[in-house]
């Protein structure tokens, strides 16, 4: 057995509870007595507490709140109050509130280690097949109702396993070889999920930036559920909203990720208070949030988080005009010089953060392309190497990224514990002679009048690179690559498509090569799922058909038929079944094979991301990692600890 130890907790909360747990008068007394100490009331709630609408802070917190380790995070104790304004491009993006809030059963800390967050602790057995989750006693939903094992039971029995709500059954991470877990409620605060085999997907999924919410506010949602609500009442509600049946109603009311139902209780630091549609969304502090600072003050410090919605094209200008408190979304490195200039007479500063994805732009030769001649060429390692060596990445970096990026392969980042230097640097030097020699060696020696090599069947070697057509920089990148490829006897054409069309073409094997962003999770740890390096996903543009084969259980696509790919699949199984002990080994092997085989041709990575922070907004790190997974952009830095010093 090993267990995820919880953060230091606050035992004296209980003592206070015993001492003052006799009626409302004692409540008020408690507040006044402790005003000024670490238990001082949050000014935002002072009136409500005084009038008895809201219990005092100590009553709102769980018995053992999560005490954040400010020393380890390099933070200081803050003050309460203020708004934090940021801009989103569309009203759909209100889901970023959950991303920034970063409240998980178990989540990553800044060293990318998994730590309990909502959970008080979590026990995993030796081989990773039995998970015992312990909740915090006295933890409450944002409406004050207790958060208990019942909420987990409700999700498991009445939501995921309800045929009308989830016709195809529980999500994949809850199944091992198609087998659902045994779910048990051990007591009011403990639940257990157990499988007969290890389930390595369980924890990474719980900690994912978009967590799966395997708990739901049962006390609230039961009113929309067939099993608990009077059929006539339910039918009336369905009719009132003009929906098809109760299942749609339940689904609509229950969106814990895109917090759009202002009545849905949540465990997030801020709770939505604005009904859609709007151009300005206000999130108000959750009075029952479970984290405290080292002095025992309830977080968040900031009263309201505000999302203004604006056209994405106007965002840099608005940021430059000083209209936000914190902003990273929508901004790109292109805006850096403008923002830096605006910084002079506005009260904010631009910081450059690292990014979490492996590569800004990567070429994906489609190993499962339908054309047999192309397929043979692309599967030849010499060909992929030649393509990579004929790219001048230093030039790309200087021309397009002010030299601030790093030429590198499409692989994990140095900050990952699995990183080896050669993963990033092999085959990226600019060497036209070697590239030409490799191509000659393959027998591609005949050329046409323009100096373009001929393929074995006599067609000129013209590669059409397809892009999603969203990022104008991609065209510039390809123009530069086209120049140097020309010198290796290869002609490059760019075809900008719509994203959907591009994907469908790749899935069906029409695409020869595509340019897209590199891997998402450059900060992989041994417990992360290595799906981006193994053909298990049809979205991986280097082998869409193999991925399809795996995803559909062999119904569509093609079985991996390259030795390296077969090896990767074996290693994936090893990672899956091997338990925590084997995972690191499997990962290293997978990365080795990927580096040797150059399945995707990375161009530049580490393109820094501008982060604008208003002067006086404290506890925002100077240097951070701006990444969706893991970390949820600001989430991993705990925006609930940000505060205003002004």
């Amino acid at each position, binding site marked *: 057995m090993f267990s995820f130890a919880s953060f230091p907790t606050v035992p004296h909360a209980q003592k206070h509870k015993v001492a003052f747990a006799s009626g409302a008068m004692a409540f008020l007394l408690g507040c006044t007595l402790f005003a000024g100490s670490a238990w001082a009331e949050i000014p935002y709630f002072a009136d409500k507490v005084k009038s008895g609408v809201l219990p005092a802070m100590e009553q709102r917190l769980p018995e053992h709140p999560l005490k954040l380790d400010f020393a380890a995070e390099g933070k200081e104790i803050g003050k309460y109050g203020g708004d934090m304004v940021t801009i989103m491009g569309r009203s759909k993006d209100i889901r970023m509130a959950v991303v920034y809030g970063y409240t998980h059963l178990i989540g990553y800390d800044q060293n990318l280690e998994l730590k309990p967050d909502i959970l008080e602790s979590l026990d995993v057995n030796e081989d990773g097949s039995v998970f015992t989750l312990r909740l915090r006693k006295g933890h409450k939903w944002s409406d004050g109702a207790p958060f208990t094992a019942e909420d987990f039971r409700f999700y498991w029995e009445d939501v995921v396993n309800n045929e009308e709500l989830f016709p195809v*059954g529980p999500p994949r991470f809850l199944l091992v070889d198609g087998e659902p877990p045994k779910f048990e409620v051990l007591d009011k605060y403990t639940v257990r999920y157990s499988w007969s085999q290890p389930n390595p997907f369980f924890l990474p999924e719980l900690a994912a930036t978009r967590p799966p919410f395997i708990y739901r506010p049962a006390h609230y949602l039961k009113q929309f559920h067939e099993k608990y609500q009077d059929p006539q009442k339910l039918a009336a509600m369905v009719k009132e909203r003009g929906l*098809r049946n109760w299942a749609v109603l339940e689904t609509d009311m229950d969106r814990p990720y895109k917090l759009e139902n202002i009545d849905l209780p949540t465990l997030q630091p801020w709770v939505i208070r*604005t009904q859609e549609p709007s151009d300005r969304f206000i999130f108000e502090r959750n009075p029952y949030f479970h984290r405290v600072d080292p002095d025992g003050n309830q977080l968040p410090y900031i009263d309201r988080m505000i999302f203004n919605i604006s056209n994405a094209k106007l965002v840099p200008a608005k940021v430059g005009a000083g209209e936000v408190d914190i902003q990273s979304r929508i901004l790109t490195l292109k805006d850096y010089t403008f923002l830096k200039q605006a910084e002079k007479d506005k009260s904010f500063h631009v910081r450059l953060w690292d990014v979490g994805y492996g590569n800004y732009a990567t070429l994906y030769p489609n190993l499962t392309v339908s054309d047999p001649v192309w397929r043979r060429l692309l599967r030849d390692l010499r060909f992929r190497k030649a393509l990579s060596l004929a790219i001048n990445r230093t030039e790309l970096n200087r021309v397009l990224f002010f030299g601030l990026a790093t030429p590198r392969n499409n692989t994990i980042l140095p900050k990952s514990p699995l990183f080896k230097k050669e993963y990033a640097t092999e085959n990226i030097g600019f060497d036209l002679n070697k590239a030409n020699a490799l191509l000659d060696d393959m027998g591609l020696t005949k050329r046409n009048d323009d100096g373009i090599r001929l393929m074995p069947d006599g067609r000129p070697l013209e590669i059409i690179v397809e892009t999603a057509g969203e990022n104008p920089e991609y065209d510039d990148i390809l123009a530069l690559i086209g120049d140097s490829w020309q010198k290796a006897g290869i002609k490059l054409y760019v075809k900008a498509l719509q*994203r959907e069309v591009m994907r469908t073409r790749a899935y069906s094997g029409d695409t020869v090569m595509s340019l897209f962003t590199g891997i998402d999770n450059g900060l992989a740890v041994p417990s992360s799922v290595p799906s981006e390096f193994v053909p298990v996903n049809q979205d991986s543009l280097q082998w869409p058909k193999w991925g399809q084969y795996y995803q559909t259980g062999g119904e569509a696509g093609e079985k991996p038929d390259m030795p390296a790919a077969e090896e990767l699949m074996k290693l994936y199984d090893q990672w899956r079944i091997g338990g925590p002990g084997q995972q690191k080994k499997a990962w290293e092997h997978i990365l080795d094979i990927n580096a040797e085989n150059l399945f995707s041709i990375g161009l530049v990575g580490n393109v820094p991301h501008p982060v604008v922070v208003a002067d006086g907004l404290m506890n925002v790190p100077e240097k951070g990692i701006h990444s969706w997974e893991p970390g949820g952009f600001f989430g991993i830095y705990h925006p609930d600890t940000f505060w205003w010093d002004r």
Partner: protein
Amino acid sequence: MLTYVARRLLVMIPTLFMISVLVFIVIQLPPGDFLTTYMNELKAQGEAVDPSKIAFLRAQYGLDDPLYIQYFHWAWGLLHGNLGFSFEYNLPVTEVVGDRLWLSMVLNFSTILFIYVVSFPIGIYSATRQYSWGDYGITLLGFLGLAMPNFLFALILLYYANVVFGTSIGGLMDPQFINAGWSWPKVISIIEHLWAPVLVIGTSGTAAMIRRLRANLLDELGRQYVVTARAKGLSPMKVLFKYPLRMSLNPFISDIGNILPQVVSGSVLVSVVMSLPTTGPMLLSALQSQDMYLAGSFLMFLALLTVVGMFVSDLLLAWLDPRIRLQGSISQ
């Protein structure tokens, strides 16, 4: 006259039916549906989508049904005043449109007013002083508005409004007033933000209006009855306003047919660039995300307004200019 009105009204029914079919086809033309677009967007940000959930949603929203069933479902709803359900907002379309509708009206009525106020005097002036320096100079101004790319003009105005007056960039009010109740500062804030889009959209409309008024007026000014009136000693102003100007009002009135839909859809491009909370950008994003009932209902609404607007302008024209009415009855 009555049969004329009745006929005009009856023709509207098949017209609207044809439009509804067309609208539905156009919306369904791009590959995929709302859910595929939604999935792709999530994937673009690295978020995983649960395929089973998508299958569920597709079935629940009836996206699995054949097209004609989806059409009848939608059309049936429209006939009953039910504009359908917006997938993107998870709300009935009527609720989604709400506030935006009347902000669009404020913007567009102001714009129309601006166009009339500017182009009327200029048109009269340049017609009465044809080929003078004043005529050239002042119509040149109008053409500048027409020639300048709207989005560019909008961006420049936004920038200077921010630098000079400290107006927040984009939108129709300062952010703190959004969703807030009505107050005097809110009205001020709206006025502060309103002039820029009105100017941008308005200037592009004035040139056309000036030219039309000028041309029509010039036609009339040379007519016999004007010469006669002058010869009888009426003052030039009185002559101008009493007869030729009235006759040249024709284009203003036939424009009413277009004004109604314009008031709702607004100038989409400018609204998008300036991030105005009007219905235009909403229509655009609904089309992009294939939120078909929202987009479809919008388009149908615009079509209805166009048809009604045309009807109103026809009635007005018939009232203003008897020749039109007479021709209508002669052909019967």
